[in-house]
């Protein structure tokens, strides 16, 4: 399974990668820049995309909106991965827009793994 993490925090990225890649058959790519992240989503195929919201210059929100506009959001498995407070209504809104889930930082590694594993398809 291929996982993309878009997050500008190196420590977070490192931890997530270590966590996920310790699982069976998961590769985790990390992009620390919003624009590069969007490009990566477009150009490459990932099974799960972990999207941090707060990033400088081009934020996760921007990526989210772009994907929505290009109407590819629903076809991707995007999990919002954020430390910002999001209300239940906002969560519902993002989910109805096409996000597949919202993960609130900090979360336990078990929850993180469980969330990602949910998108595994047939031994992928």
């Amino acid at each position: 399974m291929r996982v993309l993490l878009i997050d500008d925090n190196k420590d977070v990225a490192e931890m997530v990668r270590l966590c996920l890649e310790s699982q069976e058959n998961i590769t985790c790519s990390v992009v620390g820049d919003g624009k590069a992240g969007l490009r990566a989503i477009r150009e490459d195929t990932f099974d799960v995309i972990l999207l941090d919201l707060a990033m400088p210059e081009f934020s996760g929100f921007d990526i989210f909106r772009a994907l929505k506009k290009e109407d590819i959001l629903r076809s991707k498995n995007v999990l919002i991965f954020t430390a910002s407070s999001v209300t239940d209504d906002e969560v519902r809104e993002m989910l109805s827009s096409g996000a597949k889930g919202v993960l609130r930082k900090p979360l336990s590694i078990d929850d993180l793994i469980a969330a990602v594993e949910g998108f595994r398809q047939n031994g992928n």
Partner: protein
Amino acid sequence: MTARLTPNSTAKPTKTGTTTKVIRGTSKVVDTEVDFFSKARNNADTYMNYTRPPLAVGLEPIKKAFHDAKARGVHLRYLTEITKDNLIYCKELMQIVHDLRHLDGIKGNFMISESEYVAPLILFEHRKVAPQAVYSNIKEVVEQQQYVFDNFWNMAIPAEERIKEIEERRTIRYETKVFRDQDEIANKIKYLLETSGELLVCSSFGGLQLGYHSFLDSGKDVLAKSRRGEHKGIRLVTKAIDRDSIELLKILLDMGIQIREIKNMPPMNFSVTEKEVHTTIDEMKDGKMAQSVLVSNEPVYVNHFRSIFEELWKDGIDAKTRIASIEEGADLGEVEVVPTSSRAGEIYLELVRNAQKEVMIMFPTPNAFLRQHTIGVVSLAKEAAQRRNVKIRILMPKHESTEELVRNLTGTAEEQEEGYHPSRHINNIDIRYIEQAILDTHATILVVDKKTSLVMEIRDDSKTTFEEAIGLSTYSNSKAGVLSYLSLLGNLWLQTELYQQIKESSIRLEVANEKLKVHDKMQQEFIDIAAHELRTPIQPILGLSQIIRHKLKDTDCVEPLDIIIRNALRLQRLTEDILDVQKIESQTMQLNKERFELSEWISNLVADYRNDLGKEEEKKAIKLITELNISAPIVVDADRNRLAQVIHNLLNNSVRYTKEGTIAVITKEKDQQVIVSVKDTGKGIALDILPRLFSKFVTKSYQGTGLGLYISRGIIEAHGGKIWAENNDDGKGATFTFSLPTK
């Protein structure tokens, strides 16, 4: 009515020594006459034909008799026919007797006193004394003759007038007569017009029609004369002009007649010139000739009517303007002074009772409002509002004395919040509170249905009843007048509403602001407490992680632990930063100031930093140097730790944004200040961030909270210094500088 006694009757002796006898002989007659005067006690009246006055003044004995009697206080009256022939004598006679009068065609002669009667033979010959006279002192006879004399006397005209008549050769006889014959009347009217020098007419519409239809030519002649300057013209007053009379009046106006209108004129009709007056009560409907007309050339009478006319003319309204305004549909309306407070009260109640659409009242004082209540206006208004859907608007000052009544009126038990003036709009009754004007006198003003106004002057506001308090009132249905009040009251109404709105807005804002201030305080306090609380768990995290790292430093676990430590430190820094920010915001940062030498201290600081920097791979390419541009040691009075915090912060920033090159810490002295700069060759500062660099809210363009610079500024400013930043001139990197005062 001359009673005659037959000249040949013999004297008959009567009961109490009274007698009637005939006197013969001129000398005896004269004697009798003289005697008559000497015996008279109160009055002696003489009635003689035109030949006698010369005798009266010519005959010495008679003349003397007159004088003596007058001197004794006897009232002398003389009645005769004054002609131009005996004029001189009569003039002299006037000086002798008290009153001299003239009567046309006097034939008889007699004298009468309170007790005696003497009647000389009637002679028409000049200067001849009567040879015979009748004498009587019988009471009945005397009385009767006195009666006769008095009658004649009343009909007589004073000598002065007769004399004037003669001297001015007047031939006009004054008379007052009622005419009933239509032709005669018509002639009289024509005559009036033709002989006039000025014509004043007071007429109903019927009279105008009559004049126009039947006397047009005479009228036109008169007007032609007036255009030539030979006549003073025709002036006409008539009653209220309405649609029926407009046409004819316009014609008359065009002809040149001056017309004025009198409202409420009763059906009077008269025409008066300088000489004559015609009056009638007859309506002359549709121009029908009057049935009876009174005609008089009696000067008194004529003048009487002339002055009545002038009185009416004075107050009349010019017909031209009146017609113009009727045709334009403008209603003049009237303004009436209502002199008594009781009448004003009646009108007041009536107006409110009959109001159809709206009533607007301004009570200038609280007492005014209370007083209206006593005559029942307020309850009438309430009724009008409830039953007939009349909109009631009341302007009044706010006062505790009126509160209950107001509540009663609007039927509300609304609670009054402090300072809240409700615009009470219940049951069509709207009350707004105004500021009481400080004046000597006030007036309650009522405007009903935008058509009528009643202004009631408050003579004495301390009185409790309407009658006692109100002085003069002015009633008006004049459009301009009513509108003026409506306009002013409307303005006041609007202004009070706006005032209330703004006041309410202010109150809301005050409440909101208080709330916000409370929030602000809460936020401050809360962050403070929270930040302190956060320290608690961070401590063990940091401590434990460092211990474990030490134990596992040679294993694979070391990297995660480094990351853990790094992040724990970050948390700690963040918490401390938050606390610092709080201290700066609440200005409670405590500085541990010491005097120390700055330049050496900086050198040491930089040296330590250089060491630590060298441990990081990525930062190896950076050269860190110090520059000292000072002539002598610089001593500052500062908090070392805090100052170190600032310099570390600046160095951290520079390091973060510089991949390679030089970071220089430059110290120099200038104007009793020490200036320390940290100059790098890094990315420089983006222009849009530059203005907000030292504020709390820099965007997250780099990692970290960005509070460092804000805190640095706080620290420097707490020391009395300044801090600033700018990009370098050579385009490479930026320089952060702060100043400190030196002692």
